[in-house]
């Protein structure tokens, strides 16, 4: 780099902390193209997360359980409030809703296979239920979305539970857009729209507004399915205390709370990075809301957004969740951003581990695409096994931590097993700062 010698010596060039490399690049990109940046995934910035918590483990006052010997139960039952047939899962790690359209049919099938092998559920998405997905998913949750693409009563009845989607963590208050290049003949037919046009997924439901209406909508769905199926309500994390209270009031069996790290198929980068809150900051408020209503463990809570490992699962459960949902991690387990396709990623101007232009339909791994040549790269049987492996590892990790805390059940983990590493995490989770009994704000 050329430097200018001044009379007082060398002064290195200084980058602005405000106008950093990415901010400058984005301004230049916007000026050149005249359009905002759209991408997939969740927030990429560093936000308070489960890494900011630690488990204390057993010591003089608590007895650990023997690893590989003493049982640590992982089962969870969801939908016990009103549904005649609650969902029973072997592990508390579920697969989040992702659409056929955003994902290839092979990827959807693989998610179903992997979830079924591991004893958990998978979830449909915008665009309806595919036969491959239903046939390969032992437990399938059917998303009821604002667009109602592909929505029909037969599929509702085939589902094991219904998840009404109010929002998602990557974009609370936002709808979606499946760009024309991903609209194959099959996707177009399922969505009752012409091929090749951008398909807008609405941001709010067409026939209800607010919790009072929602209560009646839930009544209708229960009437339609004979009060058998649990009704989940999924929302992006923003005002968790009041949103959860309204969900309970509306009659939900299960609340799904998705933090800003949760992925989306395609949304404006500015939306992903600036709307919604991290899941870490939402869980305790949601749990407190349920506790204040006397509904904790009666209305189950599933949390999602950035779950990566068994440690994250254990921490979420210790904070009061009943289960977690994973999306991004599940796609990675299938083969998303696999370094073996590095040459292809470079051709797209990115690198393995960073690829997020899921909306463009050019995914080298064959997951976020409708291109037959690309989607054919993904073997749904093999990918399903990889997902099952990953889910088993995550579960074993969570059990390892739980046993170390002396718990014979994952759900016996509790807030007092945790400490916070940062003041922010302590304030958000109401967990004391490590080495102190201090909880900011209390």
């Amino acid at each position, binding site marked *: 780099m050329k430097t200018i010698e001044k009379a007082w010596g060398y002064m290195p060039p200084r980058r602005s902390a405000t106008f950093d490399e990415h901010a400058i690049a984005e301004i230049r990109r916007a000026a050149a*193209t*005249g*359009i905002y940046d759209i991408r997939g995934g969740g927030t990429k910035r560093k936000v308070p997360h489960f890494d900011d918590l630690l488990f204390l483990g057993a010591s003089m006052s608590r007895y650990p359980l023997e690893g590989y010997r003493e049982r640590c139960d992982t089962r969870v039952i969801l939908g016990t409030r009103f549904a005649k047939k609650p969902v029973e899962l072997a592990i508390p790690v579920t697969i989040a809703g992702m659409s056929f359209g955003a994902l290839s049919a092979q990827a959807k099938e693989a998610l179903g296979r992997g979830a079924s092998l591991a004893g958990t559920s998978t979830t449909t998405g915008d665009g309806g239920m595919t036969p491959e997905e239903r046939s390969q998913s032992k437990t399938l949750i059917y998303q009821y979305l604002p*667009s*109602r693409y592909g*929505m*029909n*009563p037969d599929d*509702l009845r085939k589902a094991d539970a219904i998840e009404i989607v109010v929002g998602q963590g990557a974009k609370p208050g936002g709808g979606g*857009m499946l*760009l*024309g290049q991903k609209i194959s003949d099959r996707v177009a037919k399922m*969505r*009752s*729209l*012409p091929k*090749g*046009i*951008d398909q*807008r997924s*609405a941001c709010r439901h*067409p*026939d*209800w507004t607010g919790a009072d*209406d929602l209560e*009646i*909508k839930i*009544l*209708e769905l229960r*009437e*339609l*399915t*004979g*009060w058998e199926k649990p009704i989940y309500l999924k929302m992006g994390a923003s005002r968790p205390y009041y949103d959860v209270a309204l969900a309970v009031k509306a009659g939900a069996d299960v609340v799904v709370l998705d933090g800003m790290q949760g992925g989306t198929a395609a949304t404006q980068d500015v939306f992903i990075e600036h709307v919604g809150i991290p899941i870490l900051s939402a869980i305790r408020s949601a749990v407190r809301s349920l506790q204040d209503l006397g509904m904790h463990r009666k209305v189950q809570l599933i949390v999602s957004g950035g779950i990566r490992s068994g440690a994250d699962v254990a921490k979420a459960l210790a904070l009061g969740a009943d289960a977690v949902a994973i999306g991004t991690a599940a796609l990675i387990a299938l083969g998303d951003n696999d370094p073996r396709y590095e040459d292809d990623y470079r051709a797209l101007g990115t690198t393995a581990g960073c690829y997020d232009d899921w909306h463009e339909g050019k995914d080298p791994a064959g997951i976020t695409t409708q291109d037959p040549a690309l989607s054919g790269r993904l073997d749904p049987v093999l990918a399903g096994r990889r997902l099952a492996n990953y889910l088993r590892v995550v579960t074993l990790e969570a059990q390892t931590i739980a046993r170390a805390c002396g718990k014979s059940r994952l759900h016996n983990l509790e807030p007092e097993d945790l400490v916070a590493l940062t003041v922010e995490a302590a304030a958000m989770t109401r967990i004391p700062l490590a080495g102190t009994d201090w909880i900011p704000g209390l």
Partner: protein
Amino acid sequence: MNQIDIGKWSQRDLNMLRTSSDTREIDLLTTSVRDLNATLQAFGSNTRSDEASFRVLTPNGAHAIAVGIDAPLNVEIAGHVGYYCGGMNKCASIIIDGNAGQGVGENMMSGVIHVKGDASQCAGATAHGGLLLIEGNASARCGISMKGIDIVVKGGIGHLSGFMGQTGRLVAFGDAGEALGDSIYEARIYVRGKVESLGADCIEKELRDEHRAELFALLKQADEAHKADVSEFRRYGSARKLYNFHIDNAGAY
């Protein structure tokens, strides 16, 4: 009372039926909506259309009446209904002898729903097929996100009717409120009265012979074929300028 398959019915079901010559009556004063719907949903799609007719008494604005039917039943509801009456209907003919609350016939797949009075907002929302006939007026967002249904409203329709309509036909004899057909896809709208304003990407289109024929067939289903002149209607649909995002169209949103 008709001869019916007793095997399908519990004694309680039988007790709640009043005897009539052709039609079984269920009174919601003494029967729950749950029991009513369970009764109607027990009929399969192979039921003959003359096999089962029901008359629902004292609806009193109850919600979710006659949802999820999957058989060609004839159901007449004697009074006003609440939200989502006939929701997701398949094959059944449902007559509402009164006004209908929000979302009547929402996501219906086939069959006919005939509202003798007015309908509240979101009538026929997201519906895939069948005919929704409204004798009176329909409120806001009639046919919102419609996916193949035919809706005929003999009165006017409220604002944002046909919003994001994907396919199907919406006919209004009266006036249409603001932002008709906003962000419409391939649904077709026919209005005889005054249109307050058109929504984004919705334009008036030429009423050609094939559209007159299509409209005539719709009016025939509504028993209006020879009472109304199809030429008095104007056709509205998508300009298709917003089908693929382009920054130059940002001002349209």
